[in-house]
């Protein structure tokens, strides 16, 4: 805490007022309203709300489609995170040497961070295009299997995973490279003198020492793939084919805006809220405590 404080009766309130006002109106009010709405359903003409208790949640719990959407979300987020991090860590460890031009490489790796997930998806959609895309064309030399994501759910899933991993990849790689450079070379040399091979050295020393970076990237990629990939789904697969790529956020939006089932969508928002709270709690429980009150 600061020792020096200014004294003023009303100024601090004026200073926090804009932030508090926006937080109350656009965060707290809608959040509480989501909680309230989740207990209602709209009447057939949409003119009034009918209280139905926990019926929306019962419906979610009994609907196979919702469980599929939950599973899809977790498979998607997990694949994006694990594939992305594993690949980045592998390449970063292989590329970990004192070389010149690291800053230049970093610049060349980081720019895809600026591309919107939706735009990344559109570009990859064409690369995957069953008739004109370069990827199915290349694969047609190896196999006769039709990699048509319009028809095959798992290909559509691979498409959005690849697009998301691509967008995040340079970023993950840059962070791992920086983390590796920070590890004391003497520790690794000592282990090497003691006869530990490169793989042993990696798992016994490098990986544990990198765990803060891994943890940070893990939460970041999970949050990204869970909550910031709506545009990717909306612009590329629209949840399809069928509901193969219909992640939870997309479903909540679709039921609310397309289906106009306000209460049902709000109930899904409440479930999402629980996911965020869990992720945040996880982050603060296992990370060193970085926020002090």
């Amino acid at each position, binding site marked *: 805490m600061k020792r020096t404080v200014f004294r003023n009766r009303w100024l601090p309130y004026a200073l926090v007022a804009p932030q508090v006002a926006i937080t109350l109106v656009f965060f707290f009010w809608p959040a509480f309203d989501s909680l309230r709405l989740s207990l209602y359903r709209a009447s057939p003409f949409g003119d009034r709300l009918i209280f139905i208790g926990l019926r929306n949640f019962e419906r979610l719990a009994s609907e196979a489609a919702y469980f599929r959407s939950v599973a899809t979300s977790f498979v998607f987020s997990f694949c994006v995170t694990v594939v992305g991090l594993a690949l980045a860590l592998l390449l970063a460890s292989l590329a970990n040497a004192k070389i010149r031009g690291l800053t230049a490489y970093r610049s060349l790796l980081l720019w895809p961070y600026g*591309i919107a997930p939706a735009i990344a998806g559109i570009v990859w959609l064409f690369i995957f295009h069953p008739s004109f895309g370069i990827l199915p064309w290349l694969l047609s030399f190896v196999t006769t299997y039709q990699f048509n994501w319009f028809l095959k759910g798992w290909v559509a899933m691979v498409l959005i995973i690849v697009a998301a991993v691509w967008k995040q990849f340079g970023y993950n790689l840059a962070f791992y490279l920086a983390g590796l450079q920070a590890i004391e070379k003497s520790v690794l040399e000592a282990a090497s003198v003691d006869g530990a091979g490169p793989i042993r050295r990696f798992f016994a020393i490098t990986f544990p020492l990198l765990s803060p970076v891994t943890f940070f990237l893990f939460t970041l990629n999970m949050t990204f793939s869970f909550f910031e990939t709506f545009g990717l789904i909306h612009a590329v697969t629209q949840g399809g084919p069928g509901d193969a790529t219909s992640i939870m956020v997309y479903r909540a939006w679709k039921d609310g805006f397309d289906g106009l089932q306000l209460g049902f969508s709000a109930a899904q928002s409440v479930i999402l809220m629980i996911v*965020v709270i869990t992720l945040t709690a996880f982050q603060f429980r296992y990370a060193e405590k970085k926020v002090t009150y």
Partner: protein
Amino acid sequence: MAADASGAQVLAGTADIVQVARARRRVDWSGRLAHAILIVSVAVIAFPLYYALVISTQTLDQVMSLPPRLLPSTNAVHNYIDAWTRVGMGRLLLNSAIVALAVALGKIVISLLSAFAIAYFNFRGKQFVFWMIFVTLMLPIPVRIVSTYQVISVLGWVDTYWGLTVPLMASATGTFLFRQFFLTIPDSLAEAAQLDGAGPMRFLWSILLPLSRANIAALFVILFVYGWNEYLWPLMVTNSPNMRTAVIGIDSLVPRTSQLPEWNVTMAAAVMTLLPPVAVIVVMQRWFVRGLIETEK
């Protein structure tokens, strides 16, 4: 003893030399491997953008040709003009720029002020305000989809720049970043300012603000990219094509199954949409890296 010691030294010396020599040879190899891996990574990462750029210069026949053409062609001007006129790209990019700038600058101002209040004043309810800001971390847009739209329509902010920007201006990250930074500034500065008769606002303006320049730049890059690329929010609060931002506005150019596969036009629009945020990152590289590290703390 003395001989032993010097012998050991000599031994250590030779060991050093051997190690240095070995290290030199090893560094050479691992260095080459490192360069190779990084160059391949950079190329793989760059390929989709290259492909998009190339497609955006081709004619429809070339787009549809197999094997795919990987070299630029001559139809660029035509495609870009086509994309520009079909979706009203000028308006879309203008909207995106307004949203990105307003969100970035608004958020910076708002979080600077509240961080200043929290770091430099004692006031009743401070804990509560801090807690409130913290909780916003747990309320991203997807968890309040329907209700937020209702709030916006109650305010009459659907299809307005107010609706597109103001709700995105509050967040915990900026406030925490500035507060953290203010706590590292020595108290003596504020004391000196007070002795010189400067009020709190004067202190904020003449001392804190210049000191925060690097943090402001870092946050600006992150927030500009965030504002430009936000998808769900503008999709919810706008109905008229005039108020859409570029990332959602170009959606109608993506050929669906039954349409003419004019991917050259689509890619032209995609390139125009992705260029501004990428340019901001490239130009403000130094602050961007700093911002990435700071905002995630």
